């Protein structure tokens, strides 16, 4: 695919070029002779699954890692990058997925941090120059018609604005080439659209942008060109006009992928989960969930949409017994289970796919088999009179490995050595294996490859078809739309509205996720 594609009309040198980059980590080839070029003024999306080698390539371009072989060219000249400092000097700046901002500093302080100027001859002890940088930053912001209060504390700003601060910070450092790592992961759809408009304006001013993502839709919406990586190799580069979601998915995975899950109509049964006026505190004793009423019936999937950090985590913790609710009531299968322990809930028929799988979902230093019975290790047939029965556990693990296609198919390997997708399949397999009536699935496909997403989605639908009630908490709107029968949108600890899937449009959900209720 790549060979047949002619590059953009070569009026000048590419802004940034990686030539035949190879990088190995203890025997694993993370980048295998990867070439990548960024034309001036273009938005070039780098697409690929976790572990495809995108981050390695970008780290090399940003000087964080050194390639074993290959060259980097900036503006037609070969450069040597020994660290991010060198990259920044060449005008290459990276905006990380997790912002590098000091929350208690103001916007101005954050932007000048590291390149601050001081007044007078006091050297390091001089007084911080504020007026001049403030004028420069304001000018930058005005150019891009961005409204940012330079004296606001960064920690008090919405995430979308924080990201703009990161971008201004990069521009203030003289960035000509921006590398954005998964920039929309923490944004509402509206904020994402705003970000894309901003990026467009930046390219009009001559900046070149590399955007890393695994989301197919936004990739088609914003890109001038799309390069796809798989297993350390560059699979090809396409124009969005020629591409489609299914083509990109195929390039990413290397085989045909069914993105849409078949979902037969289901008649919802009796409620399996009900909350009434539920209030849950976060770790700082602030109400993170503030009066939530939810009902999940047998045989339906209720999706909780919302930007991360609007109380979804605390809600799921309260429902699964990991955090005791401050007020309100939780009924599971018609019984009051407010404040019940995780063990009681598990025995009542709760299955839980936790949000942070590495922390809660598995014990990394345990074998796959031990993890397969993490919640039922004490029950027959896995234990008898307080003694573990390794044979029964191994049989269970072998069966789950087959059913869920977990690789490597060996019950004795350590769970921590599995890929994210296989860890998640293991958790899914375990939770669905014990005949639970209610599944609470939190971010079930976060950081998981497309193959595993496909399987996990099919399994969730299958569980629902067999009469399980499912509460699906996800910040991926596509996932919510693909699976849910009804969608509740959470914003600042409240459920703003619950929509049937038929009336849930992307736009409407987007508005609700940003806190706008239609009158």
């Amino acid at each position, binding site marked *: 695919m790549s060979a047949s594609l002619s590059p953009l009309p070569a009026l000048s040198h590419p802004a940034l070029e990686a030539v035949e980059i190879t990088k190995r980590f*203890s*025997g694993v080839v993370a980048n295998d002779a990867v070439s990548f070029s960024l034309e001036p003024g273009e938005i070039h999306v780098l697409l690929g699954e976790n572990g495809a080698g995108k981050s390695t390539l970008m780290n090399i371009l940003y000087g964080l890692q050194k390639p074993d072989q290959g060259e980097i060219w900036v503006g037609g000249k070969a450069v040597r990058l020994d660290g991010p400092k060198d990259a920044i000097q060449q005008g290459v700046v990276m905006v990380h997925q997790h912002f590098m901002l000091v929350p208690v500093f103001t916007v101005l302080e954050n932007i000048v941090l590291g390149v601050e100027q001081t007044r007078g001859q006091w050297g390091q002890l001089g007084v911080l120059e504020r007026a001049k940088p403030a004028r420069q930053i304001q000018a930058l912001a005005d150019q891009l018609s961005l409204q940012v209060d330079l004296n606001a504390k960064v920690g008090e700003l919405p995430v979308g604005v924080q990201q703009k601060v990161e971008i201004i910070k990069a521009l203030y450092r003289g960035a000509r080439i921006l590398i954005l790592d998964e920039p929309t992961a923490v944004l509402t759809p509206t904020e994402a659209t705003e970000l894309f408009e901003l990026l467009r304006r930046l390219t009009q001013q001559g900046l070149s942008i590399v955007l890393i993502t695994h989301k197919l839709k936004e990739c088609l919406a914003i890109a001038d060109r799309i390069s796809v990586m798989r297993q350390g190799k560059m699979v090809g580069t396409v124009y969005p006009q020629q591409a489609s979601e299914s083509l990109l998915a195929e390039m990413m995975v290397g085989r045909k992928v069914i993105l849409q899950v078949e979902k037969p109509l289901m008649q919802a049964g009796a409620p399996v989960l009900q909350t009434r006026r539920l209030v849950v505190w976060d770790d700082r004793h602030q109400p993170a969930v503030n009066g939530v009423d939810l009902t999940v019936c047998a045989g339906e999937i209720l999706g909780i949409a919302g930007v991360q950090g609007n109380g979804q985590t605390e809600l799921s913790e309260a429902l*699964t*017994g*990991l955090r005791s609710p401050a007020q309100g009531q939780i009924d599971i299968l018609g019984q009051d289970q407010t404040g019940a*322990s*995780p*063990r*009681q*809930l*598990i025995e009542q028929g709760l299955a*839980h796919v*936790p949000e*942070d799988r590495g*922390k*809660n*979902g*598995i*014990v*990394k*230093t*345990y074998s796959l088999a*031990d993890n397969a019975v*993490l*919640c039922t*290790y*004490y029950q027959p047939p896995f*234990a008898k009179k*307080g*003694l*573990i029965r390794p044979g029964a556990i191994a049989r269970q693990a072998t069966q789950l490995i087959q059913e869920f296609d977990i*690789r*490597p198919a*060996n019950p*004795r*390997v*350590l769970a*921590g*050595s599995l890929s994210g997708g296989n860890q998640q399949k293991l958790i899914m397999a375990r939770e669905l294996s014990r005949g639970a009536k209610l599944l609470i699935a939190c971010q079930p496909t976060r950081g998981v490859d497309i193959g595993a997403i496909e399987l996990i989605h099919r399994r969730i639908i299958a569980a629902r078809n067999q009469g399980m009630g499912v509460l699906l908490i996800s910040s991926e709107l596509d996932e919510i739309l693909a699976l849910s029968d009804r969608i509740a949108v959470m914003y600042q600890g409240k459920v703003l509205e619950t929509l049937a899937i038929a009336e849930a449009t992307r736009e409407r959900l987007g508005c609700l996720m940003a806190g706008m209720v239609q009158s």
Partner: protein
Amino acid sequence: MADVKQKPFITIGRQLITPLLAIATAMLITVPIIGFTLNWDWAKVAVTYGGLLDGALFKQYAFANTLVSAIPLMFTGLALALGFRTGVFNIGASGQFLMGATCAVFVGYAIPLPPLIHPLVALIAGAIGGGLWGAIPGFLKARFGSHEVINTIMLNYLAFFLQDWLVKNPMKDPSPTIVRTPEILATAIIPRFYDRLHWGLAIALMAAYGVGWLLSKTTFGFELRTVGSSPEAARYAGMKIGRLTVLSLTLSGALAGLGGAVQILGVDRAMPVLYSSDYGFDAIPVALLGQNQPIGVLLAAVLFGALRNGSDVMQLRSGGAVSKEVIFIVQAVILLFVAAPAIVRWIYRLKLPKSQLETAPLTRGWG
């Protein structure tokens, strides 16, 4: 992906290589030190090292005495290993050892019982004493979240001074000339079977087997290990973390207390003031060198016992020029290496096998 069909002996070999290299390197480091103190007279150096070997292994009854020295370390080492495996850093083995010894000596001299029953009751009393001393920091951690490292150290001091007071006052031998407890009754003694070697060795072996069995074969052990490996996952799986934390420190304390009891009943038979306390601290390198595995702990304890006994003869043979404290250097270097295995891997250019996760089983810091 991990090579899934590893042969078991390769795995065992990998486990052994770091501790063995640590020991070898530590011994090697003593060569220039001893050489320096002996003015690079290599003949003398050879004699000195011969003394170390003789004292540890080859002299008559040397190995039996090495085992006698190793027995208390086996118990405290097991106590530490059990703690590490279950997520607690029990620095209080000294105090627990002392409390166990105190309880055992009291049962031994004050309560007349028939033979066989008498040592058994005294051992149980020792385990209970040590267990309660461990339960206190366990409870404080579970209930208030205060770190066990601080509290076990505090309780060490409490144990020292409590024992000191007890031995000088209510438990003092009636004879005015000696400040120690009365000797235990003959019925309470753990008998010897070969020179000074006593049946406490069998108890230590049973304790090691018991710890291994508990941790790997029982659901309770599974819970303890899960809390140790990942408290968050344990909570998710419905385990009662607080209860398990108290129990793991209690069990750890009970093992140390049992060690104190065995030492009293098998070796000392009466308790002086300032009763030995370094078994609790030496237990840390013993457990780490033994990779927190029961068999490993037993072997590491024997090594430390050998160093202890060998160093006496070493000092003697060198005509006093080489202080026996040289073995502390060995112990310290071993501890350094097993606590930071990356150093050993770096020195010997070993590669961490891909399949093996860099597990940090020692302690989880101050979380």
